[in-house]
């Protein structure tokens, strides 16, 4: 009888703490056959990365495997001595890590890191290992591999680095690859390429793949079977199409329902024609001077045009979605509109009055424009109580309020974002990511703004939490008549939230228009390419 490449049997992992023991994995069991790609999905804290770490036996201290078995081709690998476990890593189990920017040592060349890995596992000479390194890199889709061996990781883009990481993981032809969020840190168009490379390489070698991801789209595109995890347990296992179309557990149903899809037409009221624009952006440009690297550049510094001639307008009470890949200039745009960065040329008008430029906004204009940031962990002062964070904009020059009065206002704001008023006496670390983002919204609302700039407001959140925050934003818009500028790399989110969208590429606005029109009939080739490369759950056959 042939064994599956990987069998996990009743795996239990504990993290002992001084006070109590946290059970990270609780009786996890699944198999992966040769050549099979199994997706492991779940929200953060579900234990999916922990399962991967347990298999390759790199659980962070003080975590440890309490019971259960992991079998590689029928042979148990749990409880082996350290030296034998180390011999498995890289040789029989390869790992692909999440962030290609940090998983390569910055001080060694790609070639050095490839060759040391190959020679560790295979009895090859330096030059043979070099040849093999070149072959592997070319296979992973790196052109001129021979010349690139001498390059350092920082000389590669994120997508290229992830190709190197993949080449490193398959260097010794392992039977199993554990891919932990291999594309989460990448742009959509690159994501599709990397998934393609990984799939092709593993198919050719018959390698089993455990694909850990929070992104159902990735699973839909690549995996044969899927394992859904929640709170350290397996909720459900099955064929990808079955799980996505007919999830049997309520948790899975909720998860699938929360995922926005680019195929869902928006269920928004059509925008009444002839609404006056609240915000107008006219010919906005921004140049950045690059650091001089040679003597000649010292005198004529190279200039990077991050935003080039961007023009659009946002009617009052609507949402304008700005999409683009990293480096497209969408965040620079947002910062100029928020008045955090002066434009090189062009202007931003609010109700016809200029709010950009050297002088910036008046106090009253500043009050009317607010911003919500991407990372809810970094954008709230960790040493302040929620009351002080939310109330800070209330302390304006002509808004002096008594303490009692202030607390009432904060309580009102917290109720608006569907939180308990008691929360005001706590500190940010006592809240989850989603709650923090609500607090950030409450803070933005405290100055009674009309226009809120949301820079990737949900990209640090789990899908179910993302859905709640997006719902909250939509209902606040309805209640308060807010106007949003929504910046996102996630096309599905933008489709769900926006009335109008603009697509940015390398600083230029290549396409703008009504959201449904752009999604259903994109005019610009770049927009089409972007839409084609999305890994979306609607694409499951």
């Amino acid at each position, binding site marked *: 009888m042939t064994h599956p490449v990987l069998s996990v049997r009743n795996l239990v992992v504990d993290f002992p703490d001084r006070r109590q023991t946290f059970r990270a994995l609780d009786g996890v069991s699944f198999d992966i056959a040769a050549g099979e790609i199994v997706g492991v999905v779940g929200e953060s804290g579900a234990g999916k990365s922990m399962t991967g770490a347990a298999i390759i036996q790199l659980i962070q201290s003080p975590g440890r495997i309490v019971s259960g078995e992991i079998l590689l081709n029928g042979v148990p690998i749990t409880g082996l001595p350290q030296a034998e476990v180390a011999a498995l890593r890289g040789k029989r189990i390869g790992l692909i890590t999440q962030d290609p920017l940090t998983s390569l*040592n910055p001080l*060694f060349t790609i070639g050095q890191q490839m060759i040391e*890995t190959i020679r*560790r596992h295979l009895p090859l000479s330096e030059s043979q290992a070099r040849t093999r390194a070149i072959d592997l890199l070319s296979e992973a889709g790196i052109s001129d591999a021979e010349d690139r061996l001498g390059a350092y990781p920082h000389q590669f883009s994120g997508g290229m680095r992830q190709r190197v990481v993949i080449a490193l993981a398959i260097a010794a032809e392992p039977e199993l690859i554990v891919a932990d969020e291999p594309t989460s840190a990448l742009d959509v168009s690159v994501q599709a390429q990397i998934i393609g490379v990984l799939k092709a390489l593993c198919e050719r070698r018959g390698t089993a793949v455990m694909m850990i991801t929070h992104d159902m789209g990735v699973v839909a595109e690549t995996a044969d079977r899927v394992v859904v995890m929640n709170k350290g347990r397996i909720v459900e296992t099955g064929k990808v199409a079955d799980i996505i179309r007919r999830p049997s557990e309520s948790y899975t149903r909720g998860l699938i329902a929360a995922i926005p899809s680019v195929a869902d037409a928006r269920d928004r009221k059509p925008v009444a024609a002839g609404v006056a624009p609240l915000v107008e952006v006219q010919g906005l440009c921004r140049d950045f001077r690059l650091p001089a690297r040679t*003597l000649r550049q010292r005198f004529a510094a190279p200039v990077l045009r991050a935003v080039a001639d961007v023009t659009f307008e946002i009617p009052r009470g609507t949402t304008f979605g700005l999409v683009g890949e990293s480096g497209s200039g969408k965040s620079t745009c947002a910062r100029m509109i928020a008045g955090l960065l002066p434009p090189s040329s062009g202007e931003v008008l609010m109700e016809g009055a200029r709010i950009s430029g050297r002088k910036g906004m008046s106090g009253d204009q500043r009050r009317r424009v607010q911003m919500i940031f991407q990372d809810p962990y970094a954008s709230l002062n960790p040493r302040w109580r929620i009351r002080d964070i939310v109330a800070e904009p209330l302390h304006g020059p002509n808004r002096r309020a008594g303490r009692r009065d202030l607390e009432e206002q904060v309580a009102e704001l917290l109720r608006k974002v569907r939180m308990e008023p008691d929360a005001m006496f706590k500190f940010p670390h006592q809240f989850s990511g989603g709650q923090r983002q609500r607090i950030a919204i409450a803070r933005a609302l405290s100055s009674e703004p009309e226009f809120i700039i949301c820079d990737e407001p949900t990209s640090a959140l789990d899908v179910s939490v993302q859905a709640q925050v997006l719902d909250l934003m939509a209902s606040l818009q309805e209640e308060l008549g807010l106007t949003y500028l929504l910046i996102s790399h996630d096309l599905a989110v933008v489709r769900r939230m926006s009335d109008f969208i603009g697509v940015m590429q390398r600083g230029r606005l290549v396409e703008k228009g009504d959201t449904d029109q752009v999604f259903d009939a994109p005019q610009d080739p770049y927009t089409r390419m972007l839409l084609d490369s999305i890994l979306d759950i609607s694409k499951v056959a």
Partner: protein
Amino acid sequence: MLFFILKRVAQSLIVMIAVALISFIVFRYVGDPVAGMLGQDASIEDSAALRDRLGLNEPVLAQFARFVGNTLHGNFGISYRLQEPVLPLILSRLPATLELAMLSVTIALVGGLVMGILTALRPRSPVSMTIMTLSLIGVSLPTFLIGIGLIQLFAVKLHWLPSFGRGEVVDLGWWTTGLLTSSGLKSLVLPALTLALFQLTLIMRLVRSEMLEVLRQDYIRFARARGLSERTINFRHALKNTLVPVITITGLQLGSIIAFAIITETVFQWPGVGSLFVQAVQFVDVPIMSAYMLFIALVFVVINLIVDALYYLVDPRLHAGSLKNAG
């Protein structure tokens, strides 16, 4: 690379000019140099003549220009107290200080690195715990106390090592060394240890915390996942990344070892530049003080330059043109 070095050299020059200005102000305006040189009994005619001869009646800028010119020719004036040119005085004291500083730096670097790595790799072993506890003493005790303690133990109680001076030295013409005689070597031990102890604990703690930080990085985890041996991971991947910040701090520390050997030299009556400076301060020997200041500034500037160049060699991310072939 060349542009980078040129830029740093230019910056160093600016620093040196600024220090020269301060040094000039000290030289010219701290006390009256004429009174210092002639003594209080000199007649008014004599002091006016000297004033004229020294050019003290010229405009300040011209005086500063001449001061810089003299400095560049190695002419730092004449010591008030010893009535000798300053440069040969400093040069004759320099070997003692440099030998002491180099030995201290070697002890501090080797000891600090080895113990830092050890305590980072085995943070919970009894040896590491002991080292960490003892290092608190090194960081918190003032240098002179350590020096006196060492003298008390090794010179007074045990009579193993001499408590002061340089012992016998061998004159090589341009350099006097204590490294070739046994009494010279013995004399070196206590002051070198005293001077090294603080730096050693500092480097050790720095290496330890940097290394612990590096070991938490993703690329170390990925290196483990690639199946590399512990030795390769620790001493090839982790150590090199640890060294990047350590180089900077160590470079600056090296400067301060040379510059601030004063206390140690005083405690051990070490005939180096530091004790020359202390004597100069006692007698308001302004030419020596201002020359010493310039000398220390030069030491720091040169070391910083070397550190920058090293940094550049270790960290490829600083190399020119690296963005061009980003793909």
